[in-house]
C-alpha cells in the first residue's frame, strides 16, 4: 500500500498513513481536498464502495474528525479517510454526487453533530428525531442522562443505579456497617 500512500501524499497532501491490519489502513486528508481525494480513490484507485461516513467529536482540540470508510473489493482492502473540521462552524464539501447513499449519512451527521454539508439534498430533514429542540445530541457536551432524568418520569424504588455499589450491598451487607 505504500504506492497508494505516496500517491495520496503527492496529489492531495495526505498524511499520517497508518496500517491497522493487513486489510485496513487509515489516512488523514485536509478538509478542503476531501472531495477530490475521495473521487480519485473511487475512480482511479479502485475504492468504489463507500461503507459508511461518520464523525467523531474531538472536543478537546475543538474539532470534529470526519471518517469515510471505503473498500476496494478487488484487493480486499478497506481504507479509512479522515478529515478535521472546525467545531465552531463545521461545514464540509458534500459528496452526494459520488455515491448514491452519501446523502443519507450526511443527513445523519447534520442532525446528530450539526455538521453542515452545503448542497446535499434533504440534509435538513428530520432523520431519527422528531420535534427535537435540544442541541445536536452526539456532541460530547450534551449530557444524555441529565436530559433523560429531567424529561422522562421515573419509577421510584431503587436508590442507586450503579451496579457495583448495588451488588456490593447485596453480597456483603456486613461490610456496610
Amino acid at each position, binding site marked *: 500500500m505504500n504506492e497508494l500512500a505516496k500517491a495520496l501524499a503527492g496529489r492531495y497532501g495526505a498524511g499520517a498513513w497508518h496500517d491497522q491490519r493487513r486489510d485496513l489502513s487509515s489516512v488523514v486528508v485536509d478538509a478542503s481536498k476531501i472531495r477530490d481525494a475521495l473521487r480519485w480513490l473511487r475512480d482511479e484507485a479502485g475504492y468504489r464502495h463507500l461503507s459508511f461516513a461518520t464523525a467523531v467529536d474531538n472536543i478537546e482540540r475543538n474539532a470534529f474528525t470526519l471518517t469515510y470508510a471505503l473498500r476496494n473489493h478487488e484487493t480486499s482492502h478497506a481504507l479509512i479517510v479522515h478529515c478535521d473540521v472546525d467545531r465552531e462552524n463545521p461545514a464540509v464539501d458534500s459528496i452526494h454526487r459520488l455515491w448514491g447513499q452519501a446523502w443519507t449519512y450526511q443527513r445523519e451527521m447534520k442532525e446528530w453533530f450539526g455538521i453542515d454539508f452545503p448542497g446535499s439534498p434533504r440534509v435538513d430533514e428530520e432523520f431519527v*428525531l422528531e420535534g427535537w429542540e435540544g442541541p445536536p445530541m452526539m456532541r460530547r457536551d450534551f449530557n*444524555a442522562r441529565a436530559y433523560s432524568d429531567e424529561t*422522562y*418520569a421515573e*419509577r421510584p424504588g431503587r436508590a442507586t443505579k450503579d451496579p457495583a455499589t448495588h451488588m456490593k450491598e447485596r453480597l456483603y451487607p456486613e461490610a456496610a456497617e
Partner: protein
Amino acid sequence: MFVKKLKPAPLANEGLRPEERELFCDAAPTSYKGATKIVEDFYNWARAQSLWILGFGTGCGAIELRPLMTSRFDMYRYGIQARPTPRQSSVFVIGGYASVKTLKRIVRSYEQMMGPKFVVALGSCTINGGMYWDSYNTIKRIDQYIPVDVYIAGCMPRPEALLAGFQELKRIIRAGGAEGQNEYAINFDWYKANQKKVIKNWDMPDYSW
C-alpha cells in the same frame, strides 16, 4: 364505574390546522358504564375468550410474537389472533421500549382502538426504562402515557412467558379488574398532559378517535 352525565367542554385540538379541526373528534372519552353484575360477568367472560391483538411491532418484543403464531406455541387456541387495524383489535401489546416517535403512534393507535381495550406491556423497558434508562429518546414508564393492565417481565420474555401473561390478563378481565380504558377516560387530562410534555410536535387531534 360510571361518571356523572356532565357534558365536558370540547377539546381544543390546537395541534391541527384550523380548517381541519372540524374533521376530527372534539369530545373527550367517557368511561364505560357496566350493566348488571351477571350480565357484565358474561360480557367479561366473552371478552376474555377473544383477545385480538393489534399488529404493531413497537420494539424488540415483536420478535417473540412471531413464534407465538406458529403451531409450537399456538396462541390461536387461546383466542388470540393478530389484526392489522386498531378498529378490530382489543389488546395492544407494547413490545418493549418506546422511543418518543413511536410513543406518538402508540397513543394514536391506542385511542383509535374501540373499547373494550386492554394493554399488555412486555419487557423491562416498559417498567423502568430497562437498559436504555439514560437514553434521551426512550421513555421510562409507559403507564404514564397510556394505562397498562398487565406487565410481562423479561428481556425478551419467552413465548411461554407471553402466554402466561395472556392467561393473567384473562383472569383479570374475568374478575372485572381490567379497567385501563376507564382509567384513561377518567384521568384523561393527566395522561394528555404527560403525553404532550414528551411529544414535542403535536400535530394530531387531542383524542384520535
